[in-house]
């Protein structure tokens, strides 16, 4: 590719980002969600370098403390700082959820594209496969895989990812079918462009918005599933700090220190709300038929 073309595509990407920003500004839901997501990502990055205390540092004599100046959110039954554990749980949650979405997209998007462009038996097989996976809710699939491979971050991530493939495949397929039916794709076919080139040059750029929306909505689902799995003791094993694990642990001390359960619960809820609001807002912006209906 020549330098000129590279420069052009760079400018186009810049223009697209600018357009996206102009759109986002119009939706309070997308703004709010985007802001929450940014803060969460910032916390996750920060926790890689700095937390007030070590998330695993046990401190005898400081067990089950309430919020104070030294421990803003208090401590757990080993005297570990709750804020530090909450912070360090953030990046694990994000990595695991994002990993699951990547797996789902990595398989679901090509599957949806192939199903849309090939049609016939191939399409039927792919969509029936999606239906099959769909009859196993994400959490059930994850529990099954954990039964075989044992509880770990990887198992949880892969299991949730696989269970989320159908939703990606369906969205991709229906969006791609719509693009493939347009006249400019017909024109591209007419002058002999290869199916692969059509997919790359026409279909992918046009369905990208739908994929972004789906990814954002799916992230809210995977965050929830990751937290649920670690709450059930089927995710990342202790002592590593996870939101679900902290919640499960705090449940043993509800009568002594109920706030201990509130923090991780709040963290999960805010994270889910953020991705959900972002995805919802983006969808409303992208779908003109929905605009003004809310």
């Amino acid at each position: 590719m020549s330098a000129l073309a590279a420069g052009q595509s760079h400018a186009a990407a810049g223009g697209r980002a600018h357009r996206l920003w102009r759109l986002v500004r119009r939706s309070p839901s997308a703004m709010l969600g985007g802001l929450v997501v940014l803060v969460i990502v910032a916390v996750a990055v920060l926790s890689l370098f700095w937390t007030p205390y070590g998330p695993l540092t046990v401190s005898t004599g400081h067990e089950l403390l309430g919020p104070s100046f030294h421990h803003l959110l208090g401590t757990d039954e080993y005297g570990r700082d709750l804020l530090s554990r909450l912070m360090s749980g953030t990046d694990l949650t994000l990595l695991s959820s994002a990993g699951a979405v990547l797996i789902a997209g990595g398989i679901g998007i090509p599957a949806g594209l192939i199903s849309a462009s090939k049609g016939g038996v191939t399409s039927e097989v792919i969509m029936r496969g999606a239906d099959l996976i769909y009859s196993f809710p994400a959490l059930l699939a994850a529990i099954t895989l954990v039964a075989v491979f044992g509880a770990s971050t990887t198992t949880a991530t892969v299991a949730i990812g696989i269970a989320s493939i159908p939703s990606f495949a369906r969205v991709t397929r229906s969006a791609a079918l719509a693009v493939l039916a347009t006249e400019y794709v017909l024109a591209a076919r007419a002058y002999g462009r290869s199916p692969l080139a059509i997919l790359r040059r026409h279909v992918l750029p046009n369905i990208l918005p739908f994929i972004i929306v789906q990814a954002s909505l799916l992230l809210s689902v995977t965050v929830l599933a990751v937290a649920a799995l670690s709450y059930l003791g089927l995710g990342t094993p202790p002592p590593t700090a996870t939101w679900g694990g902290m919640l499960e642990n705090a449940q043993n001390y509800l009568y002594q220190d109920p706030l201990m359960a509130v923090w991780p619960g709040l963290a999960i809820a805010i994270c889910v709300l953020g991705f959900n609001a972002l995805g919802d807002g983006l969808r409303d912006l992208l779908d003109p038929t929905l605009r003004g209906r809310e």
Partner: protein
Amino acid sequence: MVRFAVRRLTTVLLTLWAASILVFTVLNILPGTPAQVILGTQATPASVRALTIKLGLNEPLVLQYLHWMQGLLTLHLGNSYISGQPIAPELGAALEVTAPLVVLGLLVGLLIAVPAGLVSAVHHRKASGAALAAATQVGIAIPNFVLGILLIIVVAVYLKWLPASGFTPWSSSVGGALQSLILPSVSLGLVEGAILARYVRTAVLGVLRADYLRTARAKGMRTGQALVRHGIRNAAVPVVTVLGLELSGLIIGAVVIEAVFTLPGVGSLLLSSVANRDLILVQDIVMLVATVVVLTNLLVDILYRVIDPRIGLRS
């Protein structure tokens, strides 16, 4: 009608058959482990081999699969690897907890979703409607197990109105059993209700703008009458579709909620069998849940063809 039923039923059976192969394959990827797990790491290779033979795990996988299928179809679910007890009665007892929990959860969800969705649609230009819509948005973001714990903190720890966990069996007290299901079904239903409420709202908004509602008012019906006469059925079409998805959400949500409230239901059974590596039990339960999910979707499909004559039973 008959052709539609036959076609749908064939699809359902094929899906379930494929699901059973999938479940069986996944759970038997690592051959021979169950006996090792059951006997512990100190077991001699000889005793492991003996148990493997006793459990029938030395047979070819295809035979094992056929055995399992035969058991499923005749409802002889076999014996637990760990306890040696037959699985069917144990699963039956667990269902006595889980089935009412899911039904009550659905009820709570509908009791919240229908009024909230209706009011927020009818009043969508007023503050009350907007506030309700915002509340459902927040409700969606709170996972049911988080809500369950919050409810325990408020209702059980502070107010001391209800027990924090545990289950009174139906046989000892129906009232007690219902009481121990209150908090779990509310935690389960509230979130699903919030999700459903948004669909109800969209559906009702669509109906409110429909021309046939105006026709009904031109006939002399008042808005409320017209909504009852024409709105409910029309709004039900999209809502019923979503309801199927919500039901599978409720079923899987019940697994987590049972853990929160330590209820001896199917979810708890599943989790303990996972912890014990009682793979035959895991296999049975996963298949049971998948079957319920698939059948629920079939039911919804039929239901909404009954409501909407445009789709019809022939196609």
